[in-house]
Protein backbone atom coordinates (compact mmCIF):
# COMPACT_ATOMS: atom_id res chain seq x y z
CA UNK A 1 0.00 0.00 0.00
CA UNK A 2 1.18 3.52 -0.77
CA UNK A 3 0.14 6.47 1.32
CA UNK A 4 1.26 10.00 0.51
CA UNK A 5 3.07 11.73 3.33
CA UNK A 6 4.12 15.35 3.07
CA UNK A 7 7.03 17.00 4.71
CA UNK A 8 10.80 17.15 4.48
CA UNK A 9 10.95 19.72 1.67
CA UNK A 10 13.51 21.85 3.47
CA UNK A 11 15.58 18.81 4.41
CA UNK A 12 15.57 17.61 0.80
CA UNK A 13 16.55 21.01 -0.60
CA UNK A 14 19.38 21.32 1.93
CA UNK A 15 20.55 17.77 1.25
CA UNK A 16 20.78 18.52 -2.48
CA UNK A 17 22.73 21.68 -1.76
CA UNK A 18 25.05 19.68 0.46
CA UNK A 19 25.41 17.08 -2.30
CA UNK A 20 26.48 19.81 -4.73
CA UNK A 21 29.08 20.99 -2.24
CA UNK A 22 30.49 17.52 -1.54
CA UNK A 23 30.52 16.77 -5.26
CA UNK A 24 32.66 19.82 -5.85
CA UNK A 25 34.88 18.99 -2.86
CA UNK A 26 37.81 21.14 -1.79
CA UNK A 27 37.54 24.37 -3.81
CA UNK A 28 41.30 24.74 -3.90
CA UNK A 29 41.46 21.65 -6.14
CA UNK A 30 40.67 22.53 -9.78
CA UNK A 31 37.25 21.38 -10.96
CA UNK A 32 37.22 18.53 -13.48
CA UNK A 33 36.42 19.47 -17.05
CA UNK A 34 34.35 17.13 -19.20
CA UNK A 35 37.06 16.86 -21.84
CA UNK A 36 39.45 15.60 -19.16
CA UNK A 37 37.03 12.83 -18.29
CA UNK A 38 36.36 11.98 -21.94
CA UNK A 39 40.11 11.76 -22.64
CA UNK A 40 41.50 10.30 -19.45
CA UNK A 41 38.69 8.19 -18.01
CA UNK A 42 37.68 6.93 -21.44
CA UNK A 43 36.79 3.40 -20.40
CA UNK A 44 34.54 4.65 -17.59
CA UNK A 45 32.84 6.85 -20.17
CA UNK A 46 32.49 3.80 -22.44
CA UNK A 47 30.86 1.79 -19.69
CA UNK A 48 28.31 4.53 -19.03
CA UNK A 49 27.56 4.74 -22.77
CA UNK A 50 27.19 0.98 -23.08
CA UNK A 51 24.97 0.38 -20.05
CA UNK A 52 23.23 3.73 -20.34
CA UNK A 53 22.56 2.59 -23.91
CA UNK A 54 23.37 6.00 -25.32
CA UNK A 55 26.42 6.75 -27.40
CA UNK A 56 27.47 10.28 -26.49
CA UNK A 57 30.82 10.81 -24.78
CA UNK A 58 30.20 14.29 -23.39
CA UNK A 59 26.88 13.30 -21.88
CA UNK A 60 28.42 10.22 -20.29
CA UNK A 61 31.25 12.36 -18.88
CA UNK A 62 28.75 14.84 -17.47
CA UNK A 63 26.82 11.99 -15.89
CA UNK A 64 29.98 10.64 -14.26
CA UNK A 65 30.78 14.03 -12.71
CA UNK A 66 27.21 14.62 -11.62
CA UNK A 67 27.11 11.15 -10.03
CA UNK A 68 30.45 11.76 -8.27
CA UNK A 69 31.87 8.74 -10.07
CA UNK A 70 29.04 6.40 -9.05
CA UNK A 71 28.77 4.50 -12.33
CA UNK A 72 25.30 3.06 -11.86
CA UNK A 73 23.96 6.47 -10.86
CA UNK A 74 25.64 7.91 -13.98
CA UNK A 75 24.05 5.19 -16.13
CA UNK A 76 20.69 6.02 -14.54
CA UNK A 77 21.13 9.71 -15.46
CA UNK A 78 21.94 8.84 -19.06
CA UNK A 79 18.96 6.49 -19.33
CA UNK A 80 16.68 9.23 -18.00
CA UNK A 81 18.07 11.74 -20.48
CA UNK A 82 17.64 9.50 -23.50
CA UNK A 83 13.91 9.21 -22.85
CA UNK A 84 13.58 12.94 -23.56
CA UNK A 85 14.82 12.67 -27.14
CA UNK A 86 12.76 11.74 -30.20
CA UNK A 87 13.93 8.79 -32.27
CA UNK A 88 14.89 9.56 -35.85
CA UNK A 89 15.18 5.94 -36.89
CA UNK A 90 17.16 2.70 -36.90
CA UNK A 91 20.58 2.69 -38.54
CA UNK A 92 21.66 0.17 -41.12
CA UNK A 93 23.42 -2.71 -39.38
CA UNK A 94 27.08 -1.86 -38.72
CA UNK A 95 29.67 -3.74 -40.76
CA UNK A 96 32.21 -4.92 -38.18
CA UNK A 97 34.28 -6.61 -40.91
CA UNK A 98 35.04 -3.13 -42.31
CA UNK A 99 36.00 -1.71 -38.90
CA UNK A 100 38.95 0.66 -38.53
CA UNK A 101 40.59 -1.80 -36.14
CA UNK A 102 42.42 -0.55 -33.04
CA UNK A 103 42.82 -3.96 -31.42
CA UNK A 104 42.18 -7.44 -32.68
CA UNK A 105 43.27 -10.71 -31.14
CA UNK A 106 42.33 -14.32 -31.64
CA UNK A 107 42.96 -17.16 -29.21
CA UNK A 108 42.18 -19.78 -31.86
CA UNK A 109 44.43 -18.86 -34.81
CA UNK A 110 47.95 -17.56 -34.54
CA UNK A 111 48.35 -16.56 -38.17
CA UNK A 112 45.12 -15.06 -39.30
CA UNK A 113 44.74 -12.55 -42.13
CA UNK A 114 45.45 -9.10 -40.78
CA UNK A 115 47.37 -10.54 -37.84
CA UNK A 116 47.15 -10.14 -34.09
CA UNK A 117 47.04 -6.47 -33.13
CA UNK A 118 47.40 -5.88 -29.41
CA UNK A 119 46.36 -2.22 -29.47
CA UNK A 120 46.10 -0.23 -26.23
CA UNK A 121 45.67 -3.23 -23.91
CA UNK A 122 46.15 -3.87 -20.19
CA UNK A 123 47.15 -7.47 -21.05
CA UNK A 124 50.83 -8.24 -20.35
CA UNK A 125 51.17 -5.24 -18.03
CA UNK A 126 52.49 -6.22 -14.60
CA UNK A 127 49.65 -4.61 -12.71
CA UNK A 128 52.09 -2.56 -10.67
CA UNK A 129 50.87 0.84 -9.58
CA UNK A 130 52.87 3.51 -11.36
CA UNK A 131 54.09 6.37 -9.16
CA UNK A 132 55.20 8.30 -12.25
CA UNK A 133 51.60 8.58 -13.34
CA UNK A 134 50.81 10.13 -9.96
CA UNK A 135 53.59 12.64 -10.53
CA UNK A 136 52.04 13.59 -13.90
CA UNK A 137 55.12 13.08 -16.07
CA UNK A 138 55.23 13.33 -19.85
CA UNK A 139 54.10 10.38 -21.93
CA UNK A 140 55.91 9.18 -25.02
CA UNK A 141 54.26 9.27 -28.44
CA UNK A 142 53.28 5.80 -29.67
CA UNK A 143 55.45 4.12 -32.29
CA UNK A 144 54.15 3.77 -35.82
CA UNK A 145 54.66 1.05 -38.34
CA UNK A 146 53.86 2.07 -41.87
CA UNK A 147 52.48 -0.75 -43.93
CA UNK A 148 49.73 -1.43 -46.37
CA UNK A 149 46.29 -1.65 -44.83
CA UNK A 150 45.32 -5.32 -44.66
CA UNK A 151 41.81 -6.68 -44.80
CA UNK A 152 40.75 -8.24 -41.50
CA UNK A 153 37.97 -10.74 -42.12
CA UNK A 154 36.14 -12.02 -39.06
CA UNK A 155 37.59 -15.26 -37.70
CA UNK A 156 34.19 -16.94 -37.98
CA UNK A 157 34.57 -16.71 -41.77
CA UNK A 158 37.74 -18.85 -41.61
CA UNK A 159 36.09 -21.71 -39.73
CA UNK A 160 33.02 -21.36 -41.91
CA UNK A 161 35.08 -22.22 -44.97
CA UNK A 162 35.58 -25.74 -43.59
CA UNK A 163 31.94 -25.97 -42.58
CA UNK A 164 33.00 -26.69 -39.00
CA UNK A 165 31.11 -23.81 -37.42
CA UNK A 166 27.50 -22.79 -37.45
CA UNK A 167 26.65 -19.81 -39.66
CA UNK A 168 25.90 -16.33 -38.32
CA UNK A 169 22.61 -16.29 -36.44
CA UNK A 170 19.61 -15.94 -38.71
CA UNK A 171 16.02 -14.99 -38.12
CA UNK A 172 13.01 -15.73 -40.32
CA UNK A 173 12.97 -13.58 -43.47
CA UNK A 174 10.17 -11.23 -42.45
CA UNK A 175 11.39 -10.86 -38.86
CA UNK A 176 11.56 -7.25 -37.66
CA UNK A 177 14.24 -6.87 -34.97
CA UNK A 178 12.57 -6.63 -31.56
CA UNK A 179 13.18 -3.56 -29.43
CA UNK A 180 13.08 -3.69 -25.64
CA UNK A 181 12.86 0.10 -25.49
CA UNK A 182 9.44 -0.12 -27.15
CA UNK A 183 7.92 -3.37 -25.99
CA UNK A 184 7.88 -5.03 -22.59
CA UNK A 185 9.95 -8.17 -22.13
CA UNK A 186 8.14 -11.43 -22.82
CA UNK A 187 9.61 -14.87 -22.25
CA UNK A 188 10.75 -16.88 -24.06
CA UNK A 189 12.34 -14.25 -26.29
CA UNK A 190 14.09 -14.31 -29.65
CA UNK A 191 17.88 -14.10 -29.73
CA UNK A 192 17.90 -10.60 -31.24
CA UNK A 193 15.98 -9.19 -28.27
CA UNK A 194 18.18 -11.10 -25.83
CA UNK A 195 21.29 -9.60 -27.42
CA UNK A 196 19.87 -6.09 -27.07
CA UNK A 197 19.21 -6.71 -23.38
CA UNK A 198 22.68 -8.21 -22.86
CA UNK A 199 24.40 -5.34 -24.66
CA UNK A 200 23.04 -2.85 -22.11
CA UNK A 201 23.30 -5.32 -19.23
CA UNK A 202 25.41 -4.77 -16.12
CA UNK A 203 29.04 -5.66 -16.73
CA UNK A 204 29.53 -7.14 -13.27
CA UNK A 205 26.42 -9.30 -13.45
CA UNK A 206 27.26 -10.66 -16.91
CA UNK A 207 30.87 -11.17 -15.91
CA UNK A 208 29.84 -13.26 -12.91
CA UNK A 209 27.46 -15.34 -15.01
CA UNK A 210 30.08 -15.83 -17.72
CA UNK A 211 32.53 -16.92 -15.04
CA UNK A 212 29.99 -19.36 -13.63
CA UNK A 213 29.79 -21.13 -17.00
CA UNK A 214 33.56 -21.60 -16.94
CA UNK A 215 33.41 -23.04 -13.45
CA UNK A 216 31.04 -25.76 -14.53
CA UNK A 217 27.58 -24.25 -14.26
CA UNK A 218 26.59 -24.78 -17.91
CA UNK A 219 30.07 -25.44 -19.16
CA UNK A 220 30.42 -24.89 -22.89
CA UNK A 221 34.16 -24.96 -23.62
CA UNK A 222 34.68 -21.43 -24.90
CA UNK A 223 37.57 -20.05 -26.94
CA UNK A 224 37.84 -16.43 -27.97
CA UNK A 225 37.64 -16.78 -31.73
CA UNK A 226 38.20 -13.09 -31.93
CA UNK A 227 37.91 -9.84 -30.06
CA UNK A 228 38.08 -6.67 -32.09
CA UNK A 229 37.79 -3.04 -31.08
CA UNK A 230 37.56 -0.11 -33.46
CA UNK A 231 35.40 2.36 -35.27
CA UNK A 232 32.48 1.51 -37.51
CA UNK A 233 30.50 3.91 -39.65
CA UNK A 234 26.79 4.48 -39.16
CA UNK A 235 24.26 5.11 -41.91
CA UNK A 236 20.59 5.96 -41.64
CA UNK A 237 17.84 5.67 -44.25
CA UNK A 238 15.70 8.81 -44.22
CA UNK A 239 12.65 9.62 -46.34
CA UNK A 240 14.05 12.88 -47.69
CA UNK A 241 17.19 11.46 -49.31
CA UNK A 242 17.58 8.80 -51.98
CA UNK A 243 20.60 7.25 -50.25
CA UNK A 244 21.49 6.22 -46.69
CA UNK A 245 22.89 9.28 -44.97
CA UNK A 246 26.27 8.85 -43.23
CA UNK A 247 26.21 9.89 -39.57
CA UNK A 248 29.84 9.48 -38.53
CA UNK A 249 31.60 6.70 -36.63
CA UNK A 250 31.31 5.07 -33.25
CA UNK A 251 33.72 2.79 -31.41
CA UNK A 252 32.50 -0.70 -30.60
CA UNK A 253 33.91 -3.93 -29.20
CA UNK A 254 32.95 -7.24 -30.79
CA UNK A 255 33.59 -10.72 -29.44
CA UNK A 256 33.13 -14.00 -31.31
CA UNK A 257 33.20 -16.79 -28.76
CA UNK A 258 33.66 -20.24 -30.27
CA UNK A 259 32.17 -23.17 -28.37
CA UNK A 260 32.10 -26.91 -28.83
CA UNK A 261 28.95 -28.74 -29.68
CA UNK A 262 28.83 -32.50 -29.87
CA UNK A 263 26.06 -32.58 -32.44
CA UNK A 264 22.60 -33.99 -32.35
CA UNK A 265 20.31 -36.17 -34.43
CA UNK A 266 19.69 -33.16 -36.64
CA UNK A 267 23.08 -31.39 -36.70
CA UNK A 268 26.59 -32.81 -37.25
CA UNK A 269 29.26 -32.04 -34.63
CA UNK A 270 30.45 -28.49 -35.14
CA UNK A 271 31.49 -25.39 -33.28
CA UNK A 272 28.74 -23.12 -32.06
CA UNK A 273 29.10 -19.47 -31.17
CA UNK A 274 28.21 -16.81 -28.68
CA UNK A 275 28.24 -13.20 -29.79
CA UNK A 276 29.03 -9.96 -28.03
CA UNK A 277 28.79 -6.40 -29.35
CA UNK A 278 28.96 -3.37 -27.08
CA UNK A 279 29.53 0.38 -27.33
CA UNK A 280 33.02 1.65 -26.70
CA UNK A 281 36.13 -0.26 -25.67
CA UNK A 282 35.04 -2.99 -23.29
CA UNK A 283 36.27 -6.45 -24.11
CA UNK A 284 35.45 -7.84 -20.66
CA UNK A 285 31.82 -6.92 -21.22
CA UNK A 286 31.77 -8.14 -24.84
CA UNK A 287 33.30 -11.49 -23.78
CA UNK A 288 30.91 -11.91 -20.87
CA UNK A 289 28.01 -11.07 -23.19
CA UNK A 290 29.17 -13.70 -25.68
CA UNK A 291 29.44 -16.35 -22.94
CA UNK A 292 25.94 -15.54 -21.73
CA UNK A 293 24.55 -15.48 -25.28
CA UNK A 294 25.89 -19.00 -25.85
CA UNK A 295 24.66 -20.30 -22.49
CA UNK A 296 21.20 -18.88 -23.18
CA UNK A 297 21.00 -20.83 -26.42
CA UNK A 298 20.87 -24.11 -24.46
CA UNK A 299 17.32 -24.97 -25.48
CA UNK A 300 18.13 -24.27 -29.12
CA UNK A 301 20.80 -27.01 -28.98
CA UNK A 302 18.77 -29.38 -26.87
CA UNK A 303 21.07 -28.94 -23.86
CA UNK A 304 19.70 -29.39 -20.34
CA UNK A 305 18.93 -26.10 -18.63
CA UNK A 306 20.60 -26.71 -15.27
CA UNK A 307 22.38 -23.47 -14.40
CA UNK A 308 21.55 -19.82 -13.78
CA UNK A 309 23.38 -18.61 -16.89
CA UNK A 310 21.11 -20.73 -19.10
CA UNK A 311 17.90 -19.44 -17.54
CA UNK A 312 16.69 -16.72 -19.89
CA UNK A 313 14.12 -15.23 -17.57
CA UNK A 314 16.59 -15.15 -14.68
CA UNK A 315 19.44 -13.61 -16.69
CA UNK A 316 17.51 -11.05 -18.73
CA UNK A 317 15.19 -9.97 -15.91
CA UNK A 318 18.14 -9.21 -13.66
CA UNK A 319 20.80 -7.90 -16.04
CA UNK A 320 19.61 -4.30 -16.13
CA UNK A 321 21.35 -2.41 -13.36
CA UNK A 322 19.02 0.61 -13.52
CA UNK A 323 16.03 -1.61 -12.84
CA UNK A 324 17.95 -3.54 -10.22
CA UNK A 325 19.17 -0.49 -8.36
CA UNK A 326 15.74 1.09 -8.50
CA UNK A 327 14.10 -1.87 -6.87
CA UNK A 328 16.80 -2.52 -4.29
CA UNK A 329 17.29 1.14 -3.41
CA UNK A 330 13.61 1.91 -3.09
CA UNK A 331 13.68 -0.16 0.11
CA UNK A 332 15.29 2.78 1.92
CA UNK A 333 12.43 5.15 1.07
CA UNK A 334 9.72 5.64 3.68
CA UNK A 335 7.68 2.47 4.28
CA UNK A 336 6.26 3.75 7.57
CA UNK A 337 2.71 2.62 6.95
CA UNK A 338 3.66 -0.83 5.63
CA UNK A 339 5.88 -1.33 8.60
CA UNK A 340 3.21 -0.15 11.04
CA UNK A 341 0.92 -2.79 9.61
CA UNK A 342 3.59 -5.48 9.97
CA UNK A 343 4.36 -4.31 13.49
CA UNK A 344 0.72 -4.52 14.40
CA UNK A 345 0.49 -8.00 12.93
CA UNK A 346 3.57 -9.27 14.76
CA UNK A 347 2.31 -7.81 18.06
CA UNK A 348 -1.03 -9.54 17.62
CA UNK A 349 0.59 -12.87 16.69
CA UNK A 350 2.90 -12.55 19.67
CA UNK A 351 -0.05 -11.88 21.97
CA UNK A 352 -1.89 -14.94 20.60
CA UNK A 353 1.26 -17.03 20.95
CA UNK A 354 1.74 -15.92 24.57
CA UNK A 355 -1.91 -16.58 25.35
CA UNK A 356 -1.63 -20.13 23.99
CA UNK A 357 1.58 -20.69 25.93
CA UNK A 358 0.04 -19.45 29.20
CA UNK A 359 -3.07 -21.52 28.64
CA UNK A 360 -0.86 -24.59 28.10
CA UNK A 361 1.07 -23.91 31.29
CA UNK A 362 -2.13 -23.46 33.28
CA UNK A 363 -3.39 -26.78 31.89
CA UNK A 364 -0.13 -28.56 32.87
CA UNK A 365 -0.37 -27.10 36.35
CA UNK A 366 -3.98 -28.20 36.69
CA UNK A 367 -3.12 -31.75 35.51
CA UNK A 368 -0.16 -31.92 37.91
CA UNK A 369 -2.38 -30.80 40.77
CA UNK A 370 -4.98 -33.48 40.02
Amino acid at each position, binding site marked *: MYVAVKGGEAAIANAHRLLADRRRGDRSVPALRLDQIVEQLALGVDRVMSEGSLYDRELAALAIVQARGDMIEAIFLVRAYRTTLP*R*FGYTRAVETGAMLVERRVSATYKDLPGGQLLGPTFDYTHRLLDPELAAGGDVEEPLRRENEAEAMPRVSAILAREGLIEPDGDMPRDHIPGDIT*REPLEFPMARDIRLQALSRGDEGFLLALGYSTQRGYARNHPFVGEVRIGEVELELDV*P*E*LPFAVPLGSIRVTECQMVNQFKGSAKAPPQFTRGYGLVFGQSERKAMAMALCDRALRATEFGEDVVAAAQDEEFVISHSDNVQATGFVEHLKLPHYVDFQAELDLVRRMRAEHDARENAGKAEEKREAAE
Partner: protein
Amino acid sequence: MEIATQSIEGGFADPVFNAQTVFRAVMDAMAQPGSVQPLPAFAHPPAPLSAMAGAVALALCDNDTPLWLDPALQISAAVKSWLGFHAGAPLANTPADAHFALIAAPAEMMALDGFSQGTQDYPDRSTTLILQVSDLTSGTPLLLQGPGIEKTATIAPARMPRHFVEQWKQNSQRFPRGVDIILAAADSIACLPRTTRIKTMEA
Protein backbone atom coordinates in the same frame (compact mmCIF):
# COMPACT_ATOMS: atom_id res chain seq x y z
CA MET B 1 13.98 10.70 -56.28
CA GLU B 2 14.44 13.57 -53.93
CA ILE B 3 11.22 14.69 -52.32
CA ALA B 4 9.40 17.78 -53.50
CA THR B 5 9.69 21.12 -51.73
CA GLN B 6 6.02 21.10 -50.71
CA SER B 7 6.77 18.06 -48.58
CA ILE B 8 9.54 19.89 -46.74
CA GLU B 9 7.58 23.06 -46.00
CA GLY B 10 4.58 23.50 -43.76
CA GLY B 11 5.80 21.85 -40.58
CA PHE B 12 5.44 23.43 -37.15
CA ALA B 13 7.02 26.88 -37.12
CA ASP B 14 7.82 26.46 -33.43
CA PRO B 15 8.08 22.68 -33.02
CA VAL B 16 8.17 22.46 -29.22
CA PHE B 17 5.44 24.95 -28.35
CA ASN B 18 3.17 24.10 -31.27
CA ALA B 19 3.35 20.39 -30.43
CA GLN B 20 2.68 21.13 -26.76
CA THR B 21 -0.36 23.27 -27.58
CA VAL B 22 -1.82 20.58 -29.83
CA PHE B 23 -1.05 17.88 -27.27
CA ARG B 24 -2.75 19.88 -24.54
CA ALA B 25 -5.87 20.32 -26.69
CA VAL B 26 -5.98 16.58 -27.49
CA MET B 27 -5.50 15.72 -23.83
CA ASP B 28 -8.31 18.04 -22.72
CA ALA B 29 -10.57 16.79 -25.49
CA MET B 30 -9.93 13.18 -24.43
CA ALA B 31 -10.47 14.01 -20.76
CA GLN B 32 -13.75 15.77 -21.53
CA PRO B 33 -15.24 13.81 -24.41
CA GLY B 34 -17.48 15.86 -26.64
CA SER B 35 -15.97 19.18 -25.57
CA VAL B 36 -14.80 21.30 -28.47
CA GLN B 37 -11.21 22.52 -28.12
CA PRO B 38 -10.33 25.42 -30.41
CA LEU B 39 -6.89 25.29 -32.07
CA PRO B 40 -5.18 27.56 -34.60
CA ALA B 41 -3.75 25.97 -37.77
CA PHE B 42 -0.11 25.36 -36.87
CA ALA B 43 0.73 23.11 -39.81
CA HIS B 44 0.28 23.45 -43.55
CA PRO B 45 0.35 19.99 -45.10
CA PRO B 46 -0.30 19.24 -48.76
CA ALA B 47 -3.94 18.45 -49.68
CA PRO B 48 -5.96 16.37 -49.10
CA LEU B 49 -4.53 16.23 -45.57
CA SER B 50 -6.18 19.00 -43.55
CA ALA B 51 -4.22 21.51 -41.52
CA MET B 52 -5.76 20.31 -38.25
CA ALA B 53 -5.31 16.60 -38.90
CA GLY B 54 -1.74 17.33 -40.02
CA ALA B 55 -1.00 19.24 -36.82
CA VAL B 56 -2.42 16.44 -34.67
CA ALA B 57 -0.29 13.92 -36.58
CA LEU B 58 2.86 16.01 -36.06
CA ALA B 59 2.14 16.34 -32.34
CA LEU B 60 1.43 12.66 -31.74
CA CYS B 61 3.31 10.61 -34.33
CA ASP B 62 6.98 9.81 -34.59
CA ASN B 63 9.30 7.09 -35.71
CA ASP B 64 7.88 4.69 -33.11
CA THR B 65 4.26 4.97 -34.27
CA PRO B 66 3.29 3.22 -37.50
CA LEU B 67 0.71 5.32 -39.32
CA TRP B 68 -2.06 4.15 -41.65
CA LEU B 69 -3.53 6.44 -44.31
CA ASP B 70 -6.96 6.00 -45.82
CA PRO B 71 -7.12 5.57 -49.64
CA ALA B 72 -7.77 9.29 -50.19
CA LEU B 73 -4.46 10.14 -48.46
CA GLN B 74 -2.65 7.02 -49.62
CA ILE B 75 -2.69 8.16 -53.26
CA SER B 76 -0.93 11.42 -52.44
CA ALA B 77 2.85 11.04 -52.62
CA ALA B 78 3.18 14.58 -51.26
CA VAL B 79 1.20 13.72 -48.11
CA LYS B 80 3.28 10.60 -47.50
CA SER B 81 6.58 12.39 -47.83
CA TRP B 82 5.34 15.38 -45.79
CA LEU B 83 4.46 13.04 -42.92
CA GLY B 84 7.72 11.14 -43.43
CA PHE B 85 9.80 14.30 -43.29
CA HIS B 86 8.06 16.14 -40.45
CA ALA B 87 6.78 13.32 -38.25
CA GLY B 88 9.18 10.54 -39.26
CA ALA B 89 6.38 8.02 -38.81
CA PRO B 90 6.66 4.81 -40.83
CA LEU B 91 3.60 3.76 -42.83
CA ALA B 92 1.80 0.72 -41.42
CA ASN B 93 1.35 -2.21 -43.77
CA THR B 94 -2.18 -2.89 -42.59
CA PRO B 95 -4.70 -0.97 -40.46
CA ALA B 96 -4.22 -3.63 -37.79
CA ASP B 97 -0.53 -2.66 -37.43
CA ALA B 98 -1.25 1.05 -37.08
CA HIS B 99 -0.81 3.05 -33.88
CA PHE B 100 -2.50 5.98 -35.56
CA ALA B 101 -4.69 6.23 -38.65
CA LEU B 102 -5.41 9.37 -40.63
CA ILE B 103 -8.78 9.37 -42.34
CA ALA B 104 -9.51 12.12 -44.87
CA ALA B 105 -12.88 10.67 -45.93
CA PRO B 106 -14.61 9.27 -42.82
CA ALA B 107 -17.87 8.65 -44.72
CA GLU B 108 -16.08 6.06 -46.86
CA MET B 109 -13.85 4.58 -44.21
CA MET B 110 -13.52 0.91 -43.42
CA ALA B 111 -15.11 -0.60 -40.31
CA LEU B 112 -13.70 0.38 -36.92
CA ASP B 113 -13.01 -3.27 -36.06
CA GLY B 114 -10.52 -3.48 -38.95
CA PHE B 115 -8.03 -1.43 -36.92
CA SER B 116 -5.92 -2.69 -34.06
CA GLN B 117 -8.15 -3.12 -31.00
CA GLY B 118 -5.27 -3.69 -28.56
CA THR B 119 -5.03 -6.82 -26.49
CA GLN B 120 -6.58 -7.77 -23.20
CA ASP B 121 -3.12 -7.40 -21.59
CA TYR B 122 -2.19 -4.22 -23.51
CA PRO B 123 -5.41 -2.40 -24.47
CA ASP B 124 -3.31 0.71 -25.12
CA ARG B 125 -1.94 -0.89 -28.26
CA SER B 126 -5.08 -0.13 -30.24
CA THR B 127 -5.20 2.33 -33.13
CA THR B 128 -6.08 5.96 -32.45
CA LEU B 129 -8.13 7.26 -35.38
CA ILE B 130 -7.75 10.85 -36.54
CA LEU B 131 -10.83 11.71 -38.58
CA GLN B 132 -10.92 14.82 -40.76
CA VAL B 133 -14.34 16.43 -40.50
CA SER B 134 -15.42 19.74 -41.97
CA ASP B 135 -17.15 20.85 -38.77
CA LEU B 136 -18.59 19.56 -35.49
CA THR B 137 -22.05 21.09 -35.82
CA SER B 138 -23.70 20.24 -39.14
CA GLY B 139 -23.95 16.44 -38.88
CA THR B 140 -26.28 14.14 -37.00
CA PRO B 141 -26.15 15.14 -33.32
CA LEU B 142 -24.51 12.57 -31.03
CA LEU B 143 -25.60 12.60 -27.38
CA LEU B 144 -22.62 11.49 -25.31
CA GLN B 145 -22.31 10.02 -21.84
CA GLY B 146 -19.53 8.43 -19.86
CA PRO B 147 -16.39 9.24 -17.85
CA GLY B 148 -15.35 12.88 -18.18
CA ILE B 149 -18.88 14.05 -19.00
CA GLU B 150 -20.86 15.42 -16.09
CA LYS B 151 -24.32 14.67 -17.50
CA THR B 152 -24.38 14.63 -21.26
CA ALA B 153 -22.55 16.34 -24.10
CA THR B 154 -23.55 16.78 -27.70
CA ILE B 155 -21.52 17.15 -30.88
CA ALA B 156 -22.66 16.83 -34.47
CA PRO B 157 -19.62 16.07 -36.64
CA ALA B 158 -20.29 16.25 -40.37
CA ARG B 159 -20.09 13.17 -42.62
CA MET B 160 -19.19 10.50 -40.08
CA PRO B 161 -18.58 6.83 -40.96
CA ARG B 162 -21.53 4.71 -42.06
CA HIS B 163 -23.56 3.13 -39.24
CA PHE B 164 -21.33 5.00 -36.84
CA VAL B 165 -23.63 4.77 -33.81
CA GLU B 166 -23.95 0.99 -34.20
CA GLN B 167 -20.20 0.60 -34.81
CA TRP B 168 -19.42 2.69 -31.74
CA LYS B 169 -21.71 0.52 -29.62
CA GLN B 170 -19.73 -2.54 -30.70
CA ASN B 171 -16.51 -0.69 -29.98
CA SER B 172 -17.72 -0.04 -26.42
CA GLN B 173 -18.57 -3.72 -26.00
CA ARG B 174 -14.95 -4.67 -26.71
CA PHE B 175 -13.78 -2.72 -23.64
CA PRO B 176 -11.00 -2.60 -22.39
CA ARG B 177 -10.05 -3.13 -26.03
CA GLY B 178 -11.25 -0.75 -28.72
CA VAL B 179 -10.24 2.31 -30.74
CA ASP B 180 -10.27 5.98 -29.72
CA ILE B 181 -11.21 8.79 -32.10
CA ILE B 182 -9.91 12.31 -32.55
CA LEU B 183 -12.17 14.49 -34.68
CA ALA B 184 -10.15 17.17 -36.46
CA ALA B 185 -12.38 19.98 -37.71
CA ALA B 186 -11.19 23.15 -39.42
CA ASP B 187 -10.49 25.21 -36.31
CA SER B 188 -11.09 22.85 -33.41
CA ILE B 189 -10.91 19.26 -32.24
CA ALA B 190 -13.09 16.93 -30.18
CA CYS B 191 -12.50 13.37 -29.00
CA LEU B 192 -14.41 10.15 -28.55
CA PRO B 193 -12.42 7.86 -26.27
CA ARG B 194 -13.55 4.24 -26.10
CA THR B 195 -15.21 4.83 -22.71
CA THR B 196 -17.71 7.30 -24.17
CA ARG B 197 -21.19 5.96 -24.95
CA ILE B 198 -23.47 7.41 -27.58
CA LYS B 199 -27.00 7.60 -26.27
CA THR B 200 -29.47 6.96 -29.03
CA MET B 201 -31.58 10.07 -29.57
CA GLU B 202 -35.33 9.81 -29.53
CA ALA B 203 -36.66 10.80 -32.92
